[in-house]
């Protein structure tokens, strides 16, 4: 059942954001790899061999290895998360490669994603976009009964489609403009579709789109590479939705000027 393959492997090594970086040829370390191993387990095997050879292991982000935490993500032969559709790097398995195949591995590249080391990049810009408005303000203890606000199933399902985003950043790496529109719009749509998210909907669209720009992500010019690369297949229709909300908000949203008076 197990079958092993040999690969020609090139991996991007870069010792921090100020280092230039280069591809290293690790073909000698990439032989006899089980086709049932995941891509990250393949990198584990290569790392084990590098360490025993006295070399530093390749740094890459990973954690759950179940395709849900969004930590992992490298560009494999030019494709973020590699050749399999709707699949994170950790869920890609080596049976997708033939023996003798050439594999080039590099980090997600974008100005807003500086390299931390080797294949690991800094995606904290995503957190700051969420900080700008990717939430519904509801303090613990203040919520009404959960069934007080019915949500039509179709709306809940659509919201869930958007909420499925794992924040991996593949959309940015795939986009020729290094835009994070798919990421941002998924959060805008997830919350904006729900009745609970209406109160802050306009403010959210303005703030999040504004922060997206501040972080140095590019604009969307409808290439749709993001959707093709998205491991959760988040749809580009949410970008259109975000743009509508943003436009409407620019025309209608006024920051509240009301001041809380004293209680007497």
């Amino acid at each position: 059942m197990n079958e092993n393959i040999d690969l020609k492997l090139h991996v991007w090594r870069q010792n921090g954001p100020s280092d230039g970086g280069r591809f290293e040829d690790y073909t000698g370390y990439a032989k006899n790899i089980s086709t049932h191993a995941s891509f990250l387990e393949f990198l584990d095997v290569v790392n084990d061999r590098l360490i025993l050879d006295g070399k530093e292991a390749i740094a890459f982000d990973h954690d759950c290895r179940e395709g849900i935490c969004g930590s992992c993500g490298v560009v494999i032969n030019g494709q973020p998360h590699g050749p399999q559709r709707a699949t994170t790097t950790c869920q890609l398995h080596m049976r997708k490669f033939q023996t003798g195949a050439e594999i080039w591995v590099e980090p997600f590249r974008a100005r807003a994603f500086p390299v931390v080391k080797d294949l690991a990049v800094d995606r904290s810009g995503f957190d700051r976009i969420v900080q700008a408005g990717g939430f519904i303000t509801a303090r613990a203890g203040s919520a009404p009964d959960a069934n007080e606000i019915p949500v039509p199933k179709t709306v809940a399902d659509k919201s869930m489609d958007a909420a499925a985003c794992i924040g991996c950043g593949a959309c940015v790496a795939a986009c020729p403009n290094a835009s994070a529109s798919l990421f941002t719009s998924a959060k805008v749509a997830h919350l904006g579709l729900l009745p609970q998210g209406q109160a802050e909907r306009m403010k959210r669209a303005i703030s999040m789109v504004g922060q997206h720009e501040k972080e140095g992500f590019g604009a969307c010019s409808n290439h749709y590479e993001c959707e093709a690369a998205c491991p959760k297949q988040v749809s580009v229709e949410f970008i259109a939705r975000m743009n509508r909300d943003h436009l409407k908000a620019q025309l209608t949203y006024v920051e509240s000027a009301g001041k809380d008076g004293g209680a007497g």
Partner: protein
Amino acid sequence: MELRSNAPTGPIEKRWDQHRFDMKLVNPANKRKFEVIMVGTGLAGAAGAASLADLGYNVKAFCYQDSPRRAHSIAAQGGINGAKNYQGDGDSIHRLFYDTVKGGDFRARESNVYRLAQVSVDIIDQCVALGVPFAREYGGLLANRSFGGAQVSRTFYARGQTGQQLLLGAYSALERTIAGGKVKMNTRCEMVDVIVSEGRAVGIVTRDLVTGKIESHLADAVVLATGGYGNVFYLSTNAKGCNATAAWRAHKRGALFANPCFTQIHPTCIPQGGDYQSKLTLMSESLRNDGRVWVPRKHDDVTKDPRTLSEKDRYYYLEEKYPAFGNLMPRDIASRQAKFVCDEGLGVGPEINGVRRGVYLDFADAIKRDGKQTIAEKYGNLFEMYERITGEDPYQVPMRIYPAIHYTMGGLWVDYNLMSTIDGLFVGGEANFSDHGANRLGASALMQGLADGYFVLPYTVGNYLATKGKSKVTESDAIVKQTVDETKARFQRLIDVGQKGHQTVDSFHRKLGTYIWDHCGMERKADGLKKALAEIPKLREEFHADVKITGSGEGLNRELEKAQRVADFFELGELMCRDALERDESAGCHFRTEHQTNGECVRDDERYAHVAAWEWKGKDVAAREGNQVRHVEPLSFEYVKLTQRSYK
């Protein structure tokens, strides 16, 4: 040492209300004068940090991941329990309480469990308010499903990604409070020690994973929400980074570690494929609602295409042995039954070390009954994940599953206020031991994490601060420098050995995991545990003499991170075996083969109706016999009568 649970007395349904009333409050204007450290940003940590910040406290939060959104709570698939009784099927707070105490095989504190069941209702409200897109009926109201071990439908879910959606809800609240300036978030930053001054936790020592810098952070209270220790086993369903270092370091500074042998095996994971395997993947046990578990009846059939076997050649062992619960048997029993049939040679899938370790989980009947569309709506993403990993299509061929270590009920001992035996050191979520006894029911981990974070810690930490006031320790105190220096020395020792060693960190971790799995896994027996207790210290010594770590202490060095975590796993793994040996009974997931009737646990309530909490006695040396002392917190059951669990 007397362990005081500080649990209130009186009618159980009034205890939490009364306790909240009795607790001291901090004046709103004074809250901003207090600093609280939150370590970990999973459900308990993110919810706790956001809630404390919303109350007005200043919070410093830490996570080892690059973003708080990635904590392993995110991987929970099936759902979250809430005693809403929206289905009108007989659920109530008391029933959830009863099920949890019974499911935990009577090794949890009644007061804590009742509170958990009470706040479960508020959690669902809170999550919906935050925009968690739970599954809905066509009328727009919330949908529920039933889950392992329960006869009512009380589980709320968001497709197969409930943990993700609940965590993203808590994360969004956390990010809002970060934006508001009340939480200072430190990502890629790992807690590696706790600073204790005159018995009070006053801060932590962290290592910045990017720069390698080791430094101190001070506060008036410290909360650990750092998850469980399942990764002791190496192969587990935990994320690769999950570790026990924060809890273990707290233990070595005076926090008692309770019931370390209570570790849960999850019955529905994808079986191991080969020796390169880095983790095991869980398939939500909600699959057991519609999937039927079976193995071939005859040894000759185990390699045949399962679809060619007729009904009479299939052994639906759970349905046959337990007709009332069938495939929804609690996790521990479902897991052991899978092991039994595989040990008998009826397992399916690849043979590893002479045994086929896999059983079928078959959806053919469900697809025939409900249609492929309905099954795809419920489990689509799980089926896809299975196919990606195994290369087989579960719509066509039955899934193969096998148990794997999944959750740890044991953890740092805490009182009713979730405070450990170190003053001011609180522990929430999986990292504490408090609510699940010897076995956790499905969909209860998410409930407990959020209960602790949203609804318990914000009260009890406030009460502590109101009572104790601010910590007087400053950066210039000797204890701060001393703790930092000890941490630096510990890392330096690993770096020094690592330059000369010959074996990788992972190779040691795999060996440790194998010992623990073989002797302190699904089944334990005295001679096996004694063997493990003899072997683990030898392997640990070898680790400290021959581990190979390339790279330096400055900068990102994953091998060094792993090495210090594995060093702690060695000590914790040994304690697990000691605890398992000392607990000479079977209870829940702790199955001592000496104490059973036909594969089911036989408890010894006279001798073991208690929590075992271990106190570290040694200094910075490995745990030898006598380095830990076992203390006991007796458990009394006033509301749920002690009975032998029976699911027949």
